[in-house]
């Protein structure tokens, strides 16, 4: 039972145009949510979310404990929506650090997303710019990892685009709901909790499980070990630059360790397991 869409928005008065736009949005969302891969994405994300929510919870507790008001904490969680950048910025905000230092720290912790967006570019370029940015904003670490693990190659047909978009939104919506729910709980319960229960470690363990599932080749294992070692050795760098430096070192060493010469017709996608 497909409802007929309202007439062309150009012929309608302003209020009708808003209604028609909303109807089309709801129709698109419903089509995405009805796709079987939406629920596959949601289920796979939910498996990881249990651990990540502990991280969301602790990020919020950290915000409240650092002296931010409930309003500020709620706004930060809903708008910034980046746990590690928030964790990096919280002590700087509490210490009244200059604005550019707070933003520089957040940017450096988020630099990995720049790398992710480079990877996702061929997957997203069929969308208009606003939708690309909108989808990119809602794509976090774990949904990106799950998405590129399931789809080693960008979509070529309309059906593939639909399938990939549905899977990604399934993961993104699940991630957002889990993250923000526990985040709000953390903000409102935060003041009542003892400051150190070590709950953020559950988030770390969840990320560890995801990382282990990505070790599908020897070179990726090398990348993981190199990055871990470099991040620990360079831990003294300011603004968590050790993360960016570790990524650069690990990628460089893995590329150097690749067997040469690469076979003809081989490309990055073909190696993805």
């Amino acid at each position: 039972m497909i409802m007929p869409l309202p007439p062309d928005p150009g012929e309608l008065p302003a209020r009708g145009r808003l209604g028609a736009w909303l109807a089309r949005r709801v129709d698109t969302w419903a089509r995405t949510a009805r796709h079987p891969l939406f629920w596959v994405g949601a289920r796979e994300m939910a498996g990881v979310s249990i651990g990540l929510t502990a991280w969301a919870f602790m990020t919020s507790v950290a915000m409240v404990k650092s002296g931010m008001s409930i309003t500020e904490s709620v706004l930060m969680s809903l708008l910034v929506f980046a746990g590690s950048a928030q964790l990096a910025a919280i002590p700087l905000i509490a210490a009244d650090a200059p604005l550019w230092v707070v933003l520089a720290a957040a940017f450096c912790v988020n630099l990995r997303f720049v790398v992710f967006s480079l990877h996702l570019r061929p997957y997203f370029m069929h969308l208009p710019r606003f939708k690309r940015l909108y989808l990119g904003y809602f794509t976090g670490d774990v949904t990106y990892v799950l998405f590129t693990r399931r789809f080693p190659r960008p979509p070529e047909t309309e059906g593939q685009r639909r399938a990939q978009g549905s899977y990604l939104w399934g993961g993104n919506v699940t991630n957002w709901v889990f993250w923000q729910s526990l985040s709000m709980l953390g903000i409102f319960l935060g003041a009542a909790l003892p400051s150190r229960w070590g709950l953020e470690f559950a988030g770390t363990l969840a990320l560890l499980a995801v990382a282990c599932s990505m070790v599908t080749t020897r070179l990726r294992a090398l990348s993981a070990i190199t990055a871990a070692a470099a991040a620990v050795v360079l831990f003294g760098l300011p603004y968590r630059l050790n993360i960016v430096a570790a990524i650069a070192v690990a990628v460089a060493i893995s590329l150097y360790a690749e067997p040469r010469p690469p076979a003809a017709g081989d490309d990055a996608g073909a190696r993805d397991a």
Partner: protein
Amino acid sequence: MHELDGWTLLAILGMTAISVITRGFFFISEREWTLPEWAQRGLQYAPIAALTAVIAPDILLTEGVVGAVLRDARTWARWRRPVSTSGVGAAVT
């Protein structure tokens, strides 16, 4: 409890912009260009490197699996202990 500091609001808005910009960094331009071949190959090593780089210091230093062992005086004491009592020390721990 509910006050909203202008400076903090500015920081929050700035960080929101950074979330949008970093996550969509390579989606902004529509200009057609291809990545160098080595960079395309390198991309497959970046995500796992980022994940392990974020969690490794947590596991090894902050949460103190290695850090606590290094800070723990008993680690060093055990090495200095005479051979005759090392068995007792191991039994206690």
